[in-house]
């Protein structure tokens, strides 16, 4: 019970990580079943109703129960360590958040045990599909309650991270001395606090609509629901992305043996990014004809600006550095390259005429899987491989980690790249069957899904093997750690730190190393000068 009710932020984060991994594997199994169904036209391994449940629960599980909590859990563990805090603000709130999120996830999945099955109105729960006549039964109710609870849990965890950053920074840790990852977490919490309550309200109203009716009626009701949902639904994409940009940034700086390039520009771009990301929700509604296309198209296209700054910073950090291609660096580079495909195709769907053509097709499926799987998941893997030694005190097996990287790269691109062509050729999303001419590309995609599964198993095996036969990691296993978490022991003690170095920038440990190097260089030159003087004295 002590572990389940522990108030230590590291223990709470570990619980979030375990639960998120559980839901990831569960939702991944649903995806594999879907890809088996879609491997060839006319297979019908599952009924169309079951297929609806599969894609609904896959999307819901990955977004509400895996990527969002995993991103926040990473922050819950690392932010106090990075800003020199001995604990988090509101540890009870974080613990409460975890349990509410877990109950929400279990409620959502328990829909499979009910008569009519689990929720099957897509991860968006769009009206009128999700009302009592569109999807009758307890399973959909459980989905609505589960989404509300899981979102409440994530919101509370985000609030504790935000308060920790605002109130518990170590002496000397000004806002502009916070590490890159902590800044991305701060930006993430802004979006969570501003947008997640809206989804909780929307789910409350949806439940009322299902039981009482009259809440979202007619076309205006449907549009009103979409406004509420997408006000949450777009920022959440960045909630599932920003923390991993931070993880990638820290990995790239460490393995480039260099200070992060353009730190202040990154901070500015993060603020701009978070603001714009809150102002683009209408682009999901272009086809409704009920939004001002010009405004949402403009704000959506403007997102390319902060994204460009972030890419410039990441590339600039590598330029001139002495790059070391350890596993976290490989995953970070995988993120940078693959997310680019997702980002660039995002510009396509920011344009209303192009969006009209590809909306509701596999092009959209490919686009968001490139951002969320080939992008965010690779960023998460970079973070996992980078901080695993700090969290557990054990090193991951490097060769297995690199092998799993290449398998995941192959799997991700084999699965999702053909979907662009499928979508452009007119294959609609959320269907259990399709025209025979699209069979080859679908088969490729299904083979890719199997390859991804092998890659995921390799990562899990690596974790288990590394924890069982431990190769101890020191305080700074990479030898080039820049931020405060590498100052303390691996794993950190209950109070995180027994001492702190002087904080003069966002990379205090790099400052210490550079000061020590400058000192030893000046000692060396003094020594050489003394020797020369002595030699001259002998000559005289």
């Amino acid at each position, binding site marked *: *019970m*002590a572990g*389940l*009710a*522990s*108030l230590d932020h590291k223990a709470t984060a570990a619980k979030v990580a375990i639960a998120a991994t559980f839901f990831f594997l569960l939702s991944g199994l649903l995806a594999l079943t879907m890809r088996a169904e879609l491997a060839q036209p006319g297979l019908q391994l599952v009924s169309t109703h079951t297929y609806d449940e599969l894609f609904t629960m896959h999307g819901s599980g990955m977004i509400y129960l895996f990527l969002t909590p995993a991103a926040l859990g990473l922050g819950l563990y690392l932010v106090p360590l990075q800003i*020199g805090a*001995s*604990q988090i603000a509101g*540890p*009870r709130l974080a*613990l*409460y958040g975890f*349990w*509410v999120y877990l*109950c929400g996830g279990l409620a959502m999945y328990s829909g499979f045990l009910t008569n009519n099955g689990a929720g099957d109105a897509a991860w968006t729960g769009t009206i009128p599909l999700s009302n009592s006549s569109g999807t009758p039964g*307890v399973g959909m*109710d*459980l989905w609505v*309650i589960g989404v*509300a609870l899981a979102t409440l849990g994530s919101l509370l965890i985000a609030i504790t991270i*935000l308060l920790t*950053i*605002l*109130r*518990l920074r*170590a*002496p*000397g*840790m*000004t*806002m502009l001395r916070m590490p890159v990852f902590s800044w991305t977490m*701060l930006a993430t919490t*802004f979006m969570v606090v*501003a947008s997640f*309550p*809206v989804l909780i309200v929307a789910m409350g109203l949806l*439940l009322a609509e299902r039981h009482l009716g009259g809440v979202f009626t007619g076309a205006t009701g449907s549009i009103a629901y979409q*406004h*509420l949902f997408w*006000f949450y639904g777009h920022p959440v994409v960045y909630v599932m992305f920003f923390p991993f940009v931070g993880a990638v940034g820290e990995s790239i700086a460490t393995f480039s043996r260099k200070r992060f390039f353009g730190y202040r520009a990154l901070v500015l771009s993060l*603020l701009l990014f978070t*603001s*714009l990301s*809150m*102002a683009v929700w*209408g682009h999901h509604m272009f086809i409704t004809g009920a*939004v*001002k296309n010009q405004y949402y198209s403009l*704000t959506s296209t403007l997102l390319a600006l902060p994204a460009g700054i972030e890419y410039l910073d990441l590339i600039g950090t590598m330029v001139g550095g002495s790059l070391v291609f350890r596993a976290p660096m490989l995953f970070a580079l995988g993120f940078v390259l693959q997310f680019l495909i997702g980002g660039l195709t995002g510009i396509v769907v920011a344009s209303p005429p192009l969006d009209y053509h590809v909306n509701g097709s596999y092009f959209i499926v490919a686009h968001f899987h490139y951002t969320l799987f080939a992008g965010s998941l690779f960023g998460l893997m970079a973070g996992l491989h980078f901080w695993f030694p700090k969290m557990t005190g054990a090193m991951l097996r490097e060769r297995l980690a690199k092998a799993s990287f290449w398998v995941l790269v192959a799997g991700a691109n084999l699965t999702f790249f053909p979907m662009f062509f499928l979508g452009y050729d007119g294959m609609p999303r959320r269907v259990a069957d399709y025209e025979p001419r699209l069979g080859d590309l679908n088969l490729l995609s299904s083979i890719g899904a199997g390859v991804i599964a092998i890659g995921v198993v390799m990562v899990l095996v690596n974790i288990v093997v590394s924890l069982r036969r431990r190769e101890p990691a020191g305080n700074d296993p990479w030898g080039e750690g820049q931020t405060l978490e590498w100052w303390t022991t691996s794993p950190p003690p*209950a*109070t995180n*730190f*027994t*001492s*702190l*170095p*002087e*904080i003069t920038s966002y990379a205090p440990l790099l400052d*210490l190393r550079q000061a020590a190097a400058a000192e030893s260089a000046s000692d060396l030159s003094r020594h050489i000068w003394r020797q020369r003087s002595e030699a001259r004295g002998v000559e005289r």
Partner: protein
Amino acid sequence: MAAKVGSTGGGAVTGGPKGGGGPLLAWACLQLALGTMLALWGEQVPALLFLCGAIPLLLLSAWNRVRPPTGNPRLLARVSVPVVVLALATATAALGATAGLWLFLIGAELGVFALVWLIREIVAERRTVGG
């Protein structure tokens, strides 16, 4: 070179928790600009939704300014069982919305019980800190 945790670290050390509201304010200003733009474009109701998003953050920023952290480390219980019970009670009560009033009431009763337990725990903790 290293300072003890909780110490001020000497005169050279600047910053710390007091200056945390700046980014919140900057972000809220950007929100205001984008929301106003949306309202001018003719979408008043969505603009209102948009502008409301910044309110919790502005309140948080103001609270942080009015009540800056004391900087003293707080003693905390290592585990808190009532928090777990409260979370389970919340979930049970929420499930009552579909299962029926009986489950909602069980959740509510459990919640009250957990809340009292939690308050007693916090009071005892504060007494320990004080004494």
